[in-house]
């Protein structure tokens, strides 16, 4: 109880003591100044004065003073002892915005006791406000704004002051959140000049902006013109009249206007010339507009002399100009149904709807007239954009007009020539190239000036037919872009037809891509023939649907299991390539990539193994494991050099064997082979039946291939053939022994199978027996199957299995000893010169393996060949080659493209020759 009393007394005492000085605690000293504000970067000095009572109590004086900034003790060097009770501290270059400065004393030598503290605030004096300006929104109070200058870090007040010459107006003090503008409290009086300025003030100073003197009417921002409306005129399809209501300010000041308009949907505005709207008005007629077009308008206004501010834009208002007669003729073209009946033609007339800016109104219909020589007009009224008519084979003049509510267009006139009309004067130098995401077409004007051009285009595809779209261009045009949807990576066939007064000219076509891409599939490579050190690779050209661009080249990659991959670039025109310097008896992996301008794509990998034995040495292995004439044995025939007698002997021996083994062979003379074998052109025929000549067939069939010595004269060949025939006759009936004797009786030194290297070098003459059988037996085809095929009409089946196997042999000059196809062709065409065409025996053997009777025909065939050879045949090859490049589908397209009764003549060499041209000329621009 007494404790509580004591406490209460003490508390009361303290309350009374401190209450008398207004604070609860009496500090031991004070800092002067109490709440300083200093300019950033300046020096500041504070003084701490201790109280006597405190100094006595703690036994300290001013020397014991320690200054601190936050927790940081200020070094003694910055202190100054003024007297026994006071010490100052000087802070130089104050950079902190807010500093807590405390005065402390060190009691008992080491204990810091806080005496007093102040907060030092620093900042910058205000800068002179700049760019003072005022705006008077019509009907509202005036608002002025300015640039306050740099940040002061202190509370800075801005005061807008304004006065007349005779009167001061109330100050406008800024609000805390908008220190750069102020709205005065009075409505300004127009036509009386006033002076306005801004005062900026904070703890560090006060500064005044430049004074501006103005008439508030020159700072007016008028209210927006209201109720903008648009009306059209039936008399004039090119005008629209705008009306609006001006704001009330028009009673006080004169206005000028800014009127903008655009067609509906357009993004950019057109402007009425300002000088046409430079005075107060409430309506305006806009001229030179397009008929039957919706226009959108907006308007704003300001003081006529340009002083003040533009009003906000009015709400947009729209109106449609009245209709006018169509200003252009529709694009007009026709197609003749190719399947015309005798004396009549079905002609489809077609035209394009006029674009709105030419239709000038709603097209109500089309009128077509047909005029034939000396006959009266036929009239048609059509709502559609096509009309099919039956015409005779005579010449017709067709006219077309489009009609709207106001009138008719001029007539589009087209001449449909008579059936026997010969189109001439095609466009020249036709080019197509992508640019700015559009496909551009350009050409050189023909010598005869056309009335117009028709451009047709369609997607080339194996999957869908060519359905052409078209467009018309004026006769003066010589470049344009395809106006229609075009897809990327699609091959477009573009045809340009000049149209003359007497009918269409010859069409010219070109292929182009809007944007190329890498092929979607790579080529599938396979071996055509594998030798000990070489392999002939072949592939098919990619279908147009997967090309995605112009195939520029191929790259063949091949490697062994352990070796590095080797890459070989091959021109895109090739479909065959021979890999040389391969290692024998080795597994190779090969794949192939095709490249467009945009990149390439790999095809599937193919593996093959080179044989252990060489081909060129003409190792004829006749492996007989079947009893022949109650005897069995193995017969090896080695022939190092050209020895036809040996070959013939072997062959006849084989025939005997075969006949023995497969006695029920169908009669080849009644098969298809009998038809094609002697007469079909060698390699470049597309007929799938030709597959029977492929090497695969020779492989499968137990045949003998002969590679003729180039130097061997033709008469010798004949002689050998003669021998062949004789042998055939002589071997009949006694097969056994003959084969053996003929083999063994070879006058040439025999070469063992180990003599591969030497045989490989000798390519002058080869008699091959089952050349590819090596690999076929060992890696691909079971031998039994091979044989069973070989002795029947199976070559046909084989060709079905490999329908793609109809490649051209176009690298004729690259032919070496292991390119039988090439050689076949080459020999065929050069037989009259020097080379003997022994390789015909390939075929003869194949045939003979079916039936011996064919030998007779074979001979006839061979003897007939020289007459058909030579340059003429070469030419034929070229023609076929070109046609092949375009493919059978292209022919179909040509048929479907038969517009205007014309075959679209493809630009010569188009698939191969055009593109390099454009590349060279820089005409093609990849996107």
């Amino acid at each position, binding site marked *: 109880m007494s404790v509580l009393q004591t406490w209460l007394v003490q508390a009361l005492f303290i309350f009374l003591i401190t209450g008398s000085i207004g604070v609860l605690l009496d500090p031991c000293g004070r800092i002067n100044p109490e709440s300083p504000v200093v300019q950033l970067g300046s020096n500041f000095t504070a003084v701490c004065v201790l109280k006597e009572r405190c100094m006595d109590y703690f036994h300290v004086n001013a020397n014991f003073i320690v200054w601190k900034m936050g927790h940081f003790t200020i070094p003694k060097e910055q202190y100054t002892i003024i007297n026994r009770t006071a010490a100052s501290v000087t802070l130089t270059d104050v950079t902190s915005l807010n500093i807590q400065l405390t005065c402390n004393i060190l009691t008992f030598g080491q204990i810091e006791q806080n005496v007093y503290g102040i907060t030092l605030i620093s900042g910058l004096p205000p800068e002179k406000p700049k760019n003072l300006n005022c705006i008077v929104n019509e009907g509202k109070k005036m608002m002025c704004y300015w640039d306050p200058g740099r940040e002061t870090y202190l509370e800075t007040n801005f005061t807008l002051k304004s006065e007349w*010459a*005779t009167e001061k107006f109330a100050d406008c003090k800024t609000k805390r959140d908008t220190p750069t503008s102020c709205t005065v409290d*009075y409505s300004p*009086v127009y*036509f*009386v*000049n006033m002076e306005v300025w801004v005062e900026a003030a904070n703890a560090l100073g006060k500064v005044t902006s430049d004074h501006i003197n103005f008439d508030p009417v020159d700072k007016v921002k008028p209210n927006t013109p209201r109720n903008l409306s648009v009306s059209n005129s039936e008399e004039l399809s090119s005008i629209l009249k705008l009306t609006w209501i001006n704001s009330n300010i028009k009673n*006080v000041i004169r206005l000028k206007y800014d009127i903008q308009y655009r067609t509906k949907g357009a993004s950019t505005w057109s402007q009425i010339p300002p000088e046409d709207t430079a005075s107060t008005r409430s309506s305006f007629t806009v001229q030179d507009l397009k008929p039957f077009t919706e226009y959108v308008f907006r308007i704003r206004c300001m003081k006529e002399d340009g002083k003040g501010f533009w009003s906000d834009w009015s709400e947009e208002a729209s109106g449609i100009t009245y209709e006018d007669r169509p200003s252009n003729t529709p694009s007009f073209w026709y197609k003749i149904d190719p399947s015309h009946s005798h004396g009549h033609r079905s002609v489809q007339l077609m035209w394009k709807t006029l674009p709105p800016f030419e239709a000038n109104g709603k097209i109500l219909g089309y009128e077509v007239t047909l005029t034939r020589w000396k006959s009266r007009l036929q009239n048609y009224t059509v709502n559609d954009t096509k009309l099919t008519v039956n015409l005779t084979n005579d010449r017709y003049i067709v006219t077309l007009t489009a009609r709207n509510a106001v009138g008719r267009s001029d007539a589009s006139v087209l001449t449909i020539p008579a059936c026997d009309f010969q189109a001439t004067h095609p466009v020249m130098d036709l080019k197509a190239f992508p640019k700015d995401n559009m496909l551009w077409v350009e050409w050189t004007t023909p010598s005869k000036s056309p009335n117009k051009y028709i451009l047709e285009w369609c997607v080339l595809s194996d999957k869908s037919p060519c359905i052409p779209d078209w467009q018309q261009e004026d006769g003066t045009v010589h470049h344009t872009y395809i106006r229609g949807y075009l897809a990327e990576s699609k091959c477009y066939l573009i045809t340009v037809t000049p149209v003359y007064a007497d009918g269409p000219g010859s069409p010219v076509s070109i292929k182009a891509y809007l944007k190329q891409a890498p092929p979607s599939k790579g080529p599938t490579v396979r071996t055509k023939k594998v030798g000990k050190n070489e392999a002939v690779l072949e592939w098919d050209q990619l279908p147009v649907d997967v090309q995605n661009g112009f195939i520029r080249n191929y790259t063949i990659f091949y490697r062994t299991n352990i070796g590095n991959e080797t890459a070989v670039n091959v021109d895109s025109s090739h479909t065959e390539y021979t890999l040389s310097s391969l290692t024998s008896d080795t597994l190779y992996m090969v794949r192939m990539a095709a490249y467009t301008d945009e990149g390439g794509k790999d095809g599937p990998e193919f593996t093959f193994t080179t044989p252990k034995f060489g081909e060129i040495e003409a190792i004829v292995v006749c492996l007989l494991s079947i009893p022949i004439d109650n005897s069995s044995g193995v017969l090896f025939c080695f022939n190092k050099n050209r020895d036809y007698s040996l070959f013939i002997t072997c062959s006849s021996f084989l025939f005997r064997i075969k006949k023995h083994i497969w006695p029920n062979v169908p009669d080849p003379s009644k098969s298809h082979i009998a038809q094609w074998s002697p007469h079909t052109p060698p390699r470049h025929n597309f007929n799938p039946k030709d597959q029977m000549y492929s090497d695969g067939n020779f492989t499968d069939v137990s045949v003998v291939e002969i590679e003729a010595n180039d130097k061997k004269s033709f008469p010798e060949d004949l002689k050998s053939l003669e021998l062949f025939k004789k042998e055939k006759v002589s071997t009949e009936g006694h097969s056994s022994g003959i084969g053996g004797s003929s083999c063994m009786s070879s006058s040439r030194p025999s070469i063992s199978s180990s003599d591969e290297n030497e045989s490989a070098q000798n390519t002058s003459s080869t008699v091959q027996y089952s050349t590819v059988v090596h690999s076929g037996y060992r890696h691909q085809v079971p031998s039994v199957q091979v044989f069973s095929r070989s002795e029947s009409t199976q070559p046909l089946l084989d060709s079905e299995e490999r329908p793609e196997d109809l490649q051209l042999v176009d690298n004729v000059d690259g032919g070496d000893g292991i390119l039988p196809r090439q050689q076949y062709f080459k020999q065929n065409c050069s037989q009259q010169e020097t080379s003997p065409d022994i390789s015909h025996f390939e075929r003869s053997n194949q045939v003979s393996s079916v039936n011996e009777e064919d030998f007779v025909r074979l001979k006839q065939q061979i003897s007939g060949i020289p007459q058909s050879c030579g340059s003429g045949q070469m030419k034929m090859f070229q023609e076929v080659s070109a046609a092949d490049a375009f493919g059978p589908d292209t022919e179909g397209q040509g048929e479907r493209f038969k517009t205007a009764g014309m075959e679209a003549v493809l630009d010569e060499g188009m698939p191969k020759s055009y593109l390099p041209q454009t590349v060279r000329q820089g005409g093609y621009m990849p996107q």
Partner: protein
Amino acid sequence: MDMSWDSWGMLACLCTVLWHLPAVPALNRTGDPGPGPSIQKTYDLTRYLEHQLRSLAGTYLNYLGPPFNEPDFNPPRLGADTLPRATVNLEVWRSLNDKLRLTQNYEAYSHLLCYLRGLNRQAATAELRHSLAHFCTSLQGLLGSIAGVMATLGYPLPQPLPGTEPTWTPGPAHSDFLQKMDDFWLLKELQTWLWRSAKDFNRLKKKMQPPAAAVTLHLEAHGF
């Protein structure tokens, strides 16, 4: 009695107004573009005030109520002598010299402004008070403009009557109808004055136009 209230009030107002117009520093600062621009501006201001008054009068007369807001209300003039009359014989008006023309305008608006301020004090609605206040400010601006033109042309401003103090003293009680009648006539007279002033300043403006300016000034100089 009424007259005395009006006279005292008017004088007090007039003195207040004139007290504030000893000099026209704003116009002195603008260099020496001649009186043309300020006359044009004063003319524009009269048109602007005329426009303002039209809407203000409509509102105020509606506030006064019938019969004052009726379109054909046209009472005989009462206590008219206290208001400066704008109507003047055409010949007399034509023969006025520039100084006299300007002085008459100045004196008239000084009086009218004082009356108008009395009107403002009586107005009941805030909106009306605001409109009247703005109109008063504008009229004050017109007085300043006229003073500026006079200063430019070298004419002294009319001095307030000696002995009058710039204080406003309310007069004795006034019947409500008569008070409204005074207000009606005040607005009507203001309108007439603004029409006349527009003509006055248009006339001055034409006289001050550059080609004829030298001759006109010469003649004016002779006039004084």
